[in-house]
């Protein structure tokens, strides 16, 4: 009789299992819904959350890439329609701009007429002023410190703004600066009327934003998805999105992104794992790789030994097997970094020193610096993270560098902390007592424009708490050249001056230059028309999905 109850329980289990099978294990009917012209493009982002949609986005450049430049327009924009050369700045909400010949601190922007926000209201000079007040004027009712914090490091020279007429705005800068277009390219314009309409609430605006961009926000499920639909009334008829809809999913886990792509749940993933790329290629997925302004580097503590000695810094740069790192560890998803920018970039110049992998030369330089590699070795440390934005594969990469260093006589201790803790810790710079004990930190950077590339890291006025010259690197000649470039309004001449800055930096080696990421992306073969630019940003109006 004992068997009877057991048998009954078995029966219940069987039914339960059968129900589960019926729910999901049977081959399922295809879930492909009727899609409009151009198909639905589903993207797995690396961000852990949907970036802020109500104006200036958060989540770093991924927020700018997938939300900012899609829902909104800046006055000038990056032309991301090709990938062969670096993107140029082209007109967007401003049709033209010029600096006043008699006062180079004044910039006149002529606004485009007939542009409407997604809520149907006009974009004009008042809207421009209102938006600048929202991020710079602490007394304005619409001032939002959170958005201000996102863009403040990118608009350092912008001092004031005023309306000349309904479609002309004058900006005043703190000093004559040709970098102004590179600064206004990061500022997006929100409809002031929509902000009023949602109760003067920036959080509410995030759910119902109104920009001028090529896409409108159709649906937002925080932490789950953002659905963008084409703005059919977009002012630039050449940039009406080709896809019927774009859906963004936050997928911080690389394995989740990969599985989602392979199972057809998304059509595009950011940053597939390097070791998955060959099998993705084999399975017919498209892999996009291209250099862009990214540098995976060690920022050195220049306040004392060993890194205050140029010979040691150069030795370390000769010690890294960059080619091996990219080929053996990263499946060719990076290229060697022998400077801050890559060869072929207009700022690369012609550095006298080229850091090929040369352990013998590294040992020789260390010997000249007084380190024989046996009785006296360089002992230092580097703060690294376990993950983080743009950090690639920090643990194995740092271990690789550590091995390279050991070979030439540099004993490098890896001090691993969490990404958020790392970015907070390095903020005050090496001259701060909390940081003095470390020899370097490993954070990757962008060098999208001159401010990001040179001013914030290498100009003496950028020492914390003002900027990010955390080493600090102090070189009057570099200061002079950066200032000359900033006050040079001819782009070719400006590039030449910045190339001179770069040549000095390569020789001085205030960083250990390691690799440039190639911005890997994997896409379904159904995705057509995508262009991988040499940029952190992409033009989502170009791709579509074959049905």
């Amino acid at each position, binding site marked *: *009789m004992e*068997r*009877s*109850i*057991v048998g009954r*329980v*078995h029966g*219940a*289990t069987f039914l*339960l299992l059968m129900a*589960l099978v019926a*729910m*999901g*294990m049977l081959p*399922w009917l295809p*879930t*492909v*819904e009727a*899609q409009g012209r151009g198909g*639905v493009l589903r993207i797995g982002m690396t961000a*852990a*959350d949907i970036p802020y949609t109500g104006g200036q986005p*958060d989540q*770093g450049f991924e927020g700018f890439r997938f939300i900012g430049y899609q829902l909104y327009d800046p006055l000038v924009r990056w032309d991301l329609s090709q990938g062969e050369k670096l993107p140029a700045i082209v007109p967007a909400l401003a049709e033209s701009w010029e600096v006043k010949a008699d006062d180079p601190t004044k910039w006149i922007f002529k606004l485009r007429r007939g542009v409407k926000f997604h809520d149907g209201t006009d974009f004009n000079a008042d809207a421009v002023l209102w938006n600048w007040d929202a991020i710079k004027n602490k007394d304005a009712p619409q001032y939002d*410190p*959170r958005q201000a*914090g*996102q863009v*403040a*490091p990118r608009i350092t020279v912008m001092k004031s703004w005023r309306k000349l007429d309904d479609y002309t705005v004058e900006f005043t800068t703190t000093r004559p600066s040709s970098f102004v277009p590179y600064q206004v390219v990061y500022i997006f314009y929100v409809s002031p009327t929509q902000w009023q309409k949602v109760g003067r609430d920036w*959080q509410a605006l*995030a759910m119902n934003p109104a920009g001028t961009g090529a896409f409108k926000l159709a649906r937002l499920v*925080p*932490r*789950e*998805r953002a659905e963008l639909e084409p703005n059919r009334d977009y002012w630039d008829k050449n940039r009406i999105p080709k896809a019927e809809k774009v*859906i963004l*999913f936050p*997928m911080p*886990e690389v*394995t*989740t992104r990969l*599985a*989602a792509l*392979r*199972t057809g*749940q998304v059509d595009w993933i950011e940053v597939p794992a390097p070791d998955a790329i060959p099998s993705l290629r084999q399975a017919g997925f498209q892999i996009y790789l291209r250099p862009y302004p990214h540098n995976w580097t060690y920022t050195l503590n220049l306040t004392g030994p060993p890194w205050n000695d140029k010979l040691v810094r150069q030795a370390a740069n000769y010690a890294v097997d960059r080619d091996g790192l990219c080929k053996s560890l990263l499946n060719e998803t990076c290229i060697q970094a022998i400077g801050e920018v890559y060869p072929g970039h207009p700022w690369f110049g012609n550095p006298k020193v080229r850091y090929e992998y040369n352990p013998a030369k590294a040992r020789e330089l260390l010997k000249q610096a007084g380190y024989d590699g046996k009785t006296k070795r360089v002992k230092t440390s580097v703060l690294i993270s376990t993950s983080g934005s743009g950090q690639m594969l920090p643990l194995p990469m740092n271990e690789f560098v550590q091995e390279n260093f050991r070979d030439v006589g540099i004993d490098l201790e890896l001090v691993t*902390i*969490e990404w*958020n*803790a790392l*970015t*907070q*810790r390095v*903020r005050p710079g090496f001259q701060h007592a909390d940081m003095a004990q470390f020899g370097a930190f490993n*954070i990757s950077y962008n060098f999208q424009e001159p401010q990001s590339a040179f001013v*914030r890291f290498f100009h003496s006025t950028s020492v914390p*708490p*003002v900027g*990010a010259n955390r080493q600090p690197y102090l070189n009057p000649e570099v200061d002079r050249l950066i200032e000359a470039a900033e006050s040079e309004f001819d782009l070719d001449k400006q590039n030449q001056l910045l190339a001179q800055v770069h040549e000095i930096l390569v020789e001085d080696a205030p960083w250990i230059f390691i690799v440039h990421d190639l911005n890997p992306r994997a896409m379904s073969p159904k995705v057509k028309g995508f262009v991988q630019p040499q940029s952190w940003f992409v033009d989502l109006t170009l791709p579509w999905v074959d049905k």
Partner: protein
Amino acid sequence: MWSYIVRRLLLGIPTLLGVTLIVFSLLHLAPGDPINAMLPPDAPQEVVEMIKEQMGFNKPLPVQYWRWLKRVAVGDLGNSIATRRPVLDDMREALGNTFILALSAAVLGFTLGVTLGTTAAFYQGRWLDKLASATAITGVSLPHYWVGILLIIVFSVELNWLPAMGMRSTIGESSLRDVARHMVLPTIALSLIPMGVIMRMARASVLEILSQEFVMTLRAKGLWSRTVTRHIVKNAAPPVLTLMGLQFGYLLGGSVLVETVFSWPGSGFLLNLSIFQRDIPVLQGVILVLAAFFVILNLFVDILHSVIDPRIRRT
């Protein structure tokens, strides 16, 4: 009974206070801060200070804690730092999603656990017992996030039968069937541990009852085997029920790992995200609610004990 329930609920208040205090202290002792997580590394200090002031992070920690407690007392858990939305809104959705998953995992895990445990006890020492015990140990021993990844590889990537992530299809409108389909793999991954734990407890408990003299007496009196079995199961049930309550509490807490592996938008996923975003209001809110769940579940299980076994009196 009622006075017992009221007393237990009142005793739950200091428990919850203790939990909030520990969570608050740990969050503020950990390196990194929420403002830093939301801003670029080179954001001006002036703006950082302004946001700190706006959110009250510039106040001494005891003041911050006291303010938070006062708000909680009137049902306001504050706003998320990351989404700016009320924590209650974020939590309601996440807890609802976790509840769905927890319930399905509990049904699967508990049913299998009780079945295997009872079977193993009745067939002690035989191959069925060994097989059931091995299954239970496997369930408890396998890391469920690893099982989750394995399930994804087999059923999503290779066979392409089931979705690998999320709660709804990435395209088109979602239906009940669609959600059920997304639930299958995380349910299986999540049910393994409760299945193993309950199986072992059920087996031990039934074995203990089987060895008692009253079972022999019942059999000797010639009672039907079904009646004897009912007595055995009823007597073996209390410890299993206690464990089920605890296990269900764990499941409701949301498995950070399983929900993260499957991108299931539940409380575990929310907790994981909030840790990396240093979203202190969300973390505090979620942990407070989960702790309250545990207190209530324990109480519920205790009451259930007394219903099943009148010898356990609640006064």
